[in-house]
C-alpha cells in the first residue's frame, strides 16, 4: 500500500467516524439515544437498513461466488420484496403505534413478560455471538492479504465501532451509515469501471458478457424445482421470504433502524426503498465478480487466490507438484486466451467446443490445486472465493483507489457491527434492565445504554479475537442463528396474525419447537437453512393446538 492509499483510507474512515460522533454527542433520554428521537427521513432509514445488511463479507464473498459459480445467488433475494410488503403493512404500524424501543417489547403487550424475555434472550445469544463474526470475518481476510496482525486489526475495527456507537447512539449509527453507503457505492462503481477498462482493446462490454455466457456465468435464473440445488427461483422465493421476514421483521438490529423513522410512512418508505434497490445492488456486485472473471481470461490468474495458501504449499513437500500444476495451468490459460482473441471465435463451432474442453481442464487443475493444499498444508482455507476480489483490487487498481476500496470493506464491516452492538445494548437496557429496574431517572438509562454498548462491544471484540481458535466457529454461529430464528419468527407471526392465541400457549409452543428444532438439527435431517421455515411453522401450529388445550 502506498502513502496515497493510507491517506484515502484513514481520511475517509476518520472523517465518517469523527463527524458522526461529534454531530450526535449529547442525549437527554433513551428516546434520543436508542430511537434517534424519531427524526429519520425515509431515505436515511432505507440507507441504514441496507448498510446494516451489507457486511464486509457481502463485498468480499459475493463477487468471488459469481467468479466461480455464476450469478444464480441473486435468486435468494427474490423473497425479500415480498417480506418488505408484509412488514410494512402489518409490523411497522403496530411497532409505531405502541411506541416500542425493541421488537420484543411489543410481545409483552401482546402476550406476557415471559414471552418477551424469552425472545429477547434468544436474540441476545444469537446476535451477541454473530457480532464477533461480523468483525472477525473481514479481519482474517485483510490480515492474510495485507500481512497486518489479525488481533490488532480486530481491536482497531472493534474499538472504532464501539467508540462512535457509544458516543452518538442510534443517530451516530444512522449518520455514519449514510456516508458509508456513499463510499461503498462509489468504490463499487469505480472498481467496475476499472475492471472493464482493463479488458483488451478487441473486447468491449458486450463481448465480455458473451464470454461470461460461454462459461455459464450469466445463468441468473433457474426455474427447476429441486431440493438439492440450493439456489433456484423457488427456494429463493420461499426460503428468502422467510429469512427476510425474520431478519427485517424481528431482528432488533434491523427493527431499531426503521423505528428511528419520523412517522409510520417514513419507516415504510425506507423498507420499500430497500425492496427496490436490494436486487439491483446484488446484481451489480455479482456482475462485478463476473467482470473480474472475464478480466482474468486475458491475464494470467493465480492458480489459487489465497496468497498465504500458495506460500504455505511452496514451502512444503508438495512444492514441486504444485509448481508443475501451476505451469500446466498457465499454459491452459494462455491457450484459452488465444482462442478467445481469435476473430472468428463466436462463429466457429470447433473453436467453441475446444474452448469448453480447455475450460473444463482449467477447472480440474484448480480443483487439483485445492486437493494438494489439503494434502500438504494444515489449517489453510482452501476455498479461495473470499480472496478473488481483494486479490484483484490489490494487484490491479491504481494508487489511492486501493485505499478507497479498503475503506469500502471497513465501512461495510463497521456499518453492520454498529447496528448489531446498538441493538444488543437497546435490548439489554429496555427488555431486561429497565423492565426490572424501572425506578430511575431518564438520564440513568442513557448511562446504562452506554454501559451495555461498551459491554457488548467488548464481548464482540473478545469473540472475534478467539474465533480462530475454533475451527468451525463461523458455521456454528450460523447454525445457532437458524436454530433460533424460526422460533422467534413463529412467535411474531402468532402475535400479528392469530389474535385469539394467548401468551401461555405461544410460550410453551416456542419452547417445544426449540426442542424439536434442536432434535432435527442433531439428527441432521435437513439442511440448516430449512430449520428457519420448520421453526416458524411449528411454533404457529403448536400454539394453535396448545391454545385449544390450555385455557388462558
Amino acid at each position, binding site marked *: 500500500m502506498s502513502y496515497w492509499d493510507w491517506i484515502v483510507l484513514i481520511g475517509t474512515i476518520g472523517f465518517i467516524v469523527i463527524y458522526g460522533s461529534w454531530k450526535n454527542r449529547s442525549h437527554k433520554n433513551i428516546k434520543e439515544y436508542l430511537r434517534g428521537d424519531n427524526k429519520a427521513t425515509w431515505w436515511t432509514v432505507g440507507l441504514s437498513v441496507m448498510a446494516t445488511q451489507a457486511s464486509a463479507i457481502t463485498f468480499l464473498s459475493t463477487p468471488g461466488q459469481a467468479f466461480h459459480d455464476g450469478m444464480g445467488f441473486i435468486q435468494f433475494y427474490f423473497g425479500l420484496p415480498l417480506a418488505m*410488503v408484509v412488514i410494512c403493512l402489518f409490523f411497522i404500524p403496530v411497532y409505531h403505534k405502541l411506541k416500542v424501543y425493541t421488537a420484543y417489547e411489543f410481545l409483552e403487550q401482546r402476550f406476557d413478560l415471559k414471552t418477551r424475555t424469552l425472545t429477547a434472550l434468544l436474540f441476545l445469544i444469537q446476535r451477541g455471538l454473530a457480532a464477533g463474526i461480523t468483525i472477525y470475518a473481514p479481519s482474517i481476510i485483510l490480515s492474510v492479504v495485507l500481512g497486518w496482525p489479525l488481533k490488532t486489526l480486530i481491536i482497531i475495527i472493534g474499538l472504532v465501532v464501539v467508540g462512535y456507537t457509544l458516543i452518538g447512539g442510534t443517530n451516530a449509527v444512522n449518520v455514519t451509515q449514510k456516508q458509508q453507503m456513499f463510499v461503498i457505492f462509489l468504490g463499487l462503481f469505480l472498481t467496475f469501471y476499472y475492471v472493464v477498462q482493463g479488458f483488451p482493446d478487441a473486447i468491449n462490454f458486450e463481448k465480455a458478457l458473451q464470454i461470461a455466457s460461454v462459461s455459464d456465468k450469466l445463468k441468473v*435464473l433457474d426455474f427447476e424445482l429441486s431440493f438439492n440445488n440450493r439456489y433456484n427461483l423457488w427456494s429463493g422465493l420461499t426460503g428468502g421470504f422467510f429469512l427476510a421476514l425474520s431478519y427485517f421483521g424481528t431482528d432488533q438490529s434491523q427493527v431499531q433502524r426503521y423505528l428511528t423513522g419520523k412517522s409510520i410512512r417514513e419507516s415504510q418508505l425506507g423498507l420499500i426503498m430497500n425492496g427496490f434497490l436490494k436486487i439491483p445492488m446484488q446484481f451489480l456486485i455479482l456482475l462485478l465478480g463476473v467482470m473480474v472473471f472475464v478480466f482474468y481470461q486475458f491475464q494470467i490468474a493465480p492458480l489459487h487466490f489465497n496468497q498465504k495458501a500458495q506460500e504455505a504449499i511452496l514451502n512444503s513437500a508438495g512444492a514441486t507438484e504444485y509448481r508443475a500444476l501451476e505451469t500446466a495451468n498457465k499454459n491452459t490459460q494462455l491457450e484459452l486466451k488465444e482462442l478467445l482473441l481469435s476473430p472468428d471465435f463466436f462463429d466457429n463451432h470447433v473453436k467453441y467446443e475446444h474452448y469448453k474442453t480447455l475450460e473444463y481442464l482449467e477447472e480440474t487443475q484448480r480443483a487439483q490445486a485445492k486437493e494438494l493444499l489439503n494434502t500438504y498444508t494444515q489449517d489453510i482455507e482452501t476455498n479461495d472465493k473470499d480472496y478473488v476480489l481483494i486479490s484483484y483490487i490489490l494487484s490491479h487498481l491504481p494508487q489511492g483507489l486501493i485505499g478507497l476500496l479498503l475503506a469500502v470493506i471497513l465501512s461495510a464491516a463497521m456499518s453492520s457491527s454498529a447496528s448489531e452492538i446498538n441493538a444488543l445494548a437497546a435490548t439489554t437496557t429496555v427488555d431486561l434492565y429497565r423492565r426490572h429496574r424501572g425506578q430511575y431517572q431518564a438520564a440513568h438509562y442513557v448511562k446504562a445504554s452506554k454501559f451495555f454498548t461498551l459491554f457488548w462491544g467488548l464481548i464482540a471484540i473478545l469473540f472475534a479475537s478467539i474465533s480462530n481458535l475454533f475451527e468451525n466457529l463461523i458455521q456454528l454461529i450460523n447454525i445457532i442463528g437458524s436454530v433460533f430464528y424460526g422460533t422467534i419468527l413463529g412467535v411474531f407471526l402468532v402475535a400479528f396474525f392469530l389474535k385469539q392465541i394467548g401468551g401461555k400457549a405461544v410460550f410453551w409452543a416456542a419452547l417445544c419447537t426449540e426442542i424439536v428444532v434442536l432434535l432435527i438439527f442433531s439428527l441432521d435431517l435437513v439442511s440448516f437453512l430449512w430449520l428457519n421455515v420448520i421453526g416458524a411453522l411449528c411454533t404457529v401450529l403448536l400454539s394453535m393446538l396448545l391454545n385449544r388445550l390450555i385455557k388462558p
Partner: protein
Amino acid sequence: MVMKKNKLRIYYFLLGMNLIYLILFYWFMNFYQL
C-alpha cells in the same frame, strides 16, 4: 377506501418492479447466449 387504495399503490409498484427485474434477468441471460 379510496385512501386505502392509494396507500397500497406503492406496494403494487414495488412488486411490479421486482417482476420487471425478473423479466429483465430472464432476457439478460438468454440474450447473450450463443
